[in-house]
């Protein structure tokens, strides 16, 4: 299938011995000058890159306390060394979280710490692992900081909470500031600015797509479930990843949201201006770009005059929405204060289920046995509901309410310890397929366990990136892409609508008559 070997799935996840340089040459395509400039970055590697990079790093340590503390505090205890899915999948030493951080920390020590400044005078910087910045190091940064999905698993296990995601975001921002950007992320952010979403889907095409979906639903269940676009005066603005509009299995999730809103009688609309929940500004560590991308959500909410904002299924989007949106583009005092801003679609659905507002027949999903993949960003960077850990509980309660057969994957691979799908953090691009496949190994291993032990047939996900990534890499491990499913597809399929009720009640009467 490709010119690399897919890791073999064993009975449990084996921690490999570190090897040097296995993934050294694996880097994504570089951004072209116009991708860069649209985001306010230099088009190509600037002449004075060394000084600019060093100063940018100092600037970031002054702006982000986390970065400063994380660069100083690491004691190299090794607690994180076996926690990264990319290390487990590739065995490349530089994919151990601390080793990845050290790529940047070594340069920080050389230029920005008293110890480094002192020791380099005597050529003794190696004593503390400090390094002078070179063009090779720039390349090394580029490749290895695009082998991090910013999933934060290492941060859970670090005694000081050092978060490699923060380090990798900072490194990417330094690289962007000297004109070395990643094509995938930066081109996509440009599309959001120009067109309104990551996929570059313009308003007429979006309207068309939604109309097609409405027809499809009506054909399927005989109920006119609407997918309103840009309708003013509705209560809810739904912001969802643009992949939900046509990618599989995402679109079935979108159909699920629409069915939930329809059955609960909630008034809602999508927006063509904010037709993207994703925010790749986070992946490149750029506060300014993240704010600019988020601004569309605020503008759309004001423009459409909604009372609530609800986000669809997407991991990093929910991180930006839950943790950052209020900071970036708040305050949201013009919305209904009775609801948190923003809400996750699962919070809405969960609440409706709790209050008995949905008519559910879980047996509709009896042909499947489910497990659930906690998205890294949802599990470790957000919350759902009022209680800590709700982000783990609510999706499971919703799935169990609409499916009769459910099993969790092994404890150390879910919840706060969940393994990333392997495609997060802005690396969901075909030029990085090797790291994506290898990085999915731990999750695939855990899936294999429940498939073999519990007869699990499908894995539900709540993230556009997870869904795309799994659909793509799961065949490498001998599964099929239709085994990945949106949580709201499960919900949508289990909802019973009135026209169906009358039909099925007729049917059951008939069968009873036959028995007689």
């Amino acid at each position, binding site marked *: 299938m490709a010119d690399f070997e897919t890791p073999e799935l064993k009975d449990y996840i084996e921690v490999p011995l570190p090897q040097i340089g296995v993934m050294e040459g694996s880097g994504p395509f570089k951004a072209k000058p116009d991708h860069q400039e649209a985001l306010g970055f230099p088009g190509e590697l600037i002449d004075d890159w060394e000084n600019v990079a060093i100063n940018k790093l100092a600037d970031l340590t002054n702006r*982000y306390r986390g970065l400063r503390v994380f660069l100083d505090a690491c004691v190299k205890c*090794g*607690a994180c060394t076996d926690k990264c899915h990319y290390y487990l999948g590739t065995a490349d030493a530089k994919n151990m979280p601390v080793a990845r951080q050290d790529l940047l920390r070594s340069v920080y020590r050389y230029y920005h710490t008293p110890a480094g400044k002192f020791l380099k005078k005597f050529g003794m910087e190696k004593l503390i692992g400090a390094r002078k910045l070179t063009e090779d190091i720039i390349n090394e940064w580029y490749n290895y900081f695009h082998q991090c999905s910013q999933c934060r698993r290492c941060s859970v296990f670090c005694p000081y*909470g050092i978060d490699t995601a923060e380090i990798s975001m900072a490194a990417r921002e330094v690289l962007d500031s000297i004109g070395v950007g990643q094509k995938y992320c930066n081109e996509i952010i440009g599309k959001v600015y120009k067109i309104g979403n990551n996929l570059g889907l313009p308003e007429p095409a979006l309207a068309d797509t939604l109309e097609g979906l409405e027809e499809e639903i009506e054909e399927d269940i005989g109920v006119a479930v609407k997918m309103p676009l840009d309708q003013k005066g509705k209560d809810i603005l739904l912001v969802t990843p643009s992949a939900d509009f046509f990618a599989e299995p995402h679109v079935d999730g979108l159909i699920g949201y629409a069915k939930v809103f329809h059955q609960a009688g909630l008034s809602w609309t999508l927006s063509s201006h904010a037709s993207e929940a994703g925010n790749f500004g986070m992946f490149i560590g750029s506060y300014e770009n993240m704010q600019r991308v988020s601004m569309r959500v605020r503008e759309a909410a004001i423009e459409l005059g909604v009372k609530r904002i609800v986000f669809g299924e997407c991991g990093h989007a929910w991180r930006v929405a839950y943790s950052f949106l209020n900071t970036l583009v708040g*305050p949201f005092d013009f919305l209904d204060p009775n609801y948190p801003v923003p809400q996750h679609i699962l919070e809405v659905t969960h609440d409706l289920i709790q209050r008995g507002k949905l008519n559910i027949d879980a047996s509709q999903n009896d042909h499947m046995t489910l497990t659930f993949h906690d998205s890294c960003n949802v599990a470790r960077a957000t919350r759902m509901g009022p209680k800590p850990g709700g982000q783990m509980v609510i999706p499971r309660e919703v799935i169990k309410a609409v499916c009769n057969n459910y099993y969790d994957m092994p404890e150390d691979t879910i919840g706060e310890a969940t393994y990333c799908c392997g495609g997060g953090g802005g690396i969901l691009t075909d030029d990085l397929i090797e790291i994506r496949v290898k990085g999915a190994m731990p999750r695939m291993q855990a899936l294999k366990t429940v498939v073999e032990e519990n007869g699990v047939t499908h894995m539900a996900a709540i993230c556009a990136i997870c869904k795309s990534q799994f659909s793509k890499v799961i065949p490498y491990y001998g599964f099929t892409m239709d085994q990945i499913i949106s949580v709201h597809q499960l919900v949508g399929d289990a909802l019973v609508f009135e026209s169906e009720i009358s039909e099925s009640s007729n049917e059951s009467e008939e069968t009873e008559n036959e028995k007689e």
Partner: protein
Amino acid sequence: MSFLTILFATLFYFATAVLLFGVGYKIWQYAITPAPLKIPTMPAPITKLGVVLRMTEEVVLFKSLFKSNKWIWIFGWMFHFALLLVLLRHLRYFQEPVWWWVDLIQPVGMYAGFVLVIGLLGLITRRIVVARVRYITSPSDHLMLILIISIGLTGLAMRYILRTDIVSVKAFMLGLLYLDVQPIPTDWLFLTHITLVISLLLVFPFSKLLHAPGIFFSPTRNQVDNPREKRHIAKWAAKLDATRKS
């Protein structure tokens, strides 16, 4: 006063000043650097009291490390807890009369010295034996462990092998404290011990030992999970807000 006494008294004062000002500067720097975004590692506490509890669990019990790796946890925790006891026990050389609770921990403090060295030997063994940890280890990581092990061993040796004249040690220490310098004992074990301690004080603010103040400032551990309820905004980010259109 002998040259040796003046030398060590001066070094001791200098090292103490470097430690206090160096670490004080870093704490000030951490305190004034903003954390512009809410990035607690979730699930996180939703109240300040919850954060205090979380931080206490981290600092006292090394909870995250416990989740991560039982070997590092046991050796690391042995070392740190023993170090605490040893430091508290050492208070007796800086006070007259000795506080009652310092007297109370004296017997435990003596054995803590062994626990401290065993913990450190465990940690250094990991650095050599475990390939992953060996890869991420710099020479300074070994030197730091060797330094503290040597401090521990010379300390234990003064007690159990070549007993030092503890009365004159205490007189020297109290003299430093009351700015009335007394002659330093010329016992080589003691001089080695105190030289190593001075080195440790000197490198503290410039090394990874900054993890000690650092952890309290770690945003992934010290932030409250309430971004939807409360708008969190850093000064430099507020300036960007002023340029917003809506």
